[in-house]
């Protein structure tokens, strides 16, 4: 195996792409496995958010029912106010998390759509490595005037100041390779 092939294999393992995917992107097309990977979560995301909102509503309403059941009848003024607070908080929590969920699901759907209809664009140039270390470490590569956030392992494999070519789909650098 040549040095380049070995290096590409290392980059692929770290960044999550295969030789076949890189070859497809070089030819300007999206590999079927990249497309399949990008479309994941179409069902799981909405289901998880719906379950989360349902759990909030169930918890709030169940709590309110248990509260009423355990109180004297008719409810005192204090208990009535507490019940209103429980139901209000449940409604507010449900609305807020439903809104966050819908936003998240729509954002993910837009990204999937962009990936499905998008083309492979090429960025090339000298790479500049950057990063912030600490509790929440972040690593990035500046290439061709764009910033791509990558994992630590990918970042460690890239040589600062060397020329790389990146293949970008929907703003995401899916594959890349050294030019020299």
């Amino acid at each position, binding site marked *: 195996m040549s*040095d*380049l092939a*070995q*290096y590409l294999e*290392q*980059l692929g393992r770290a960044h999550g792409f295969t030789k076949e995917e890189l070859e497809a992107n070089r030819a300007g097309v999206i590999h079927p496995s990249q497309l399949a990977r990008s479309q994941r979560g179409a069902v799981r995301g909405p289901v998880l958010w719906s379950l989360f909102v349902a759990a909030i509503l169930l918890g709030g309403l169940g709590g309110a029912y248990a509260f009423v059941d355990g109180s004297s009848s008719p409810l005192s003024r204090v208990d009535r106010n507490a019940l209103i607070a429980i139901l209000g908080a449940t409604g507010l929590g449900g609305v807020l998390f439903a809104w966050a969920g819908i936003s998240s699901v729509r954002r993910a759907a837009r990204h999937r759509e962009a990936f499905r209809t998008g083309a492979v664009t090429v960025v090339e140039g*000298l790479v500049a490595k950057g990063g*912030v270390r*600490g*509790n929440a470490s972040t690593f990035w590569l500046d290439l061709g005037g764009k910033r791509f956030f990558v994992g630590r*392992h990918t970042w*460690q*494999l890239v*040589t*600062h*100041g*060397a*020329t790389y070519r990146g293949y970008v789909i929907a703003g995401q650098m899916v594959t890349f390779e*050294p*030019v*020299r």
Partner: protein
Amino acid sequence: MMQWALVAAGGVAGCGVIYGVVRWTKQMNAIWPDAAAKYGLTYSKKSESIPLGNSRDFNLLDGPSLSVVSMEERVGRTRRRSTVITARSATGLSPVRFEVVTARPAATFHLVSTGDATFDARRFILSEAKTAVQAVLTPAVRTALLGCPHSTLRIACDGAQVVVSFGELVTDAKQLTGAIDVALAIAKGP
């Protein structure tokens, strides 16, 4: 008697700690002025505030053929540090960029061998322009690099200047002078 001995021992230990802190602070404060005096540069310090209570502090050394800009940016709990040393070169260096690291890199595709076994065992050079880097790494440059304690050093040369940079905070005089010596050795040419 025993109690007095313990109090005395505690006093000595406390004085030792205070002396150590004062000495360390003095050494830290002297790093930049000492480097300025050593290389005939002008030292200045500046600070600028950025929104939401964050700040950016600079230590600057400036001279006719050498300048150093060290920046520490504080944004919330994150710290971003960079030191950039620029040395003017009269020798017309060929354009080249390379990284010098002290730990063996995970990928060896861009690894450059200098042919000096002692050097190659202690410093690892990464670049895509292997021949140009080998021309830059003269014995004087290799010696300067071995004397530089940074775990990662980034070097870029063009025809007119050499830029040496690193992202660590300068806490020791050798970290600053070592990197300046590298820049000067490269700028001097073969």
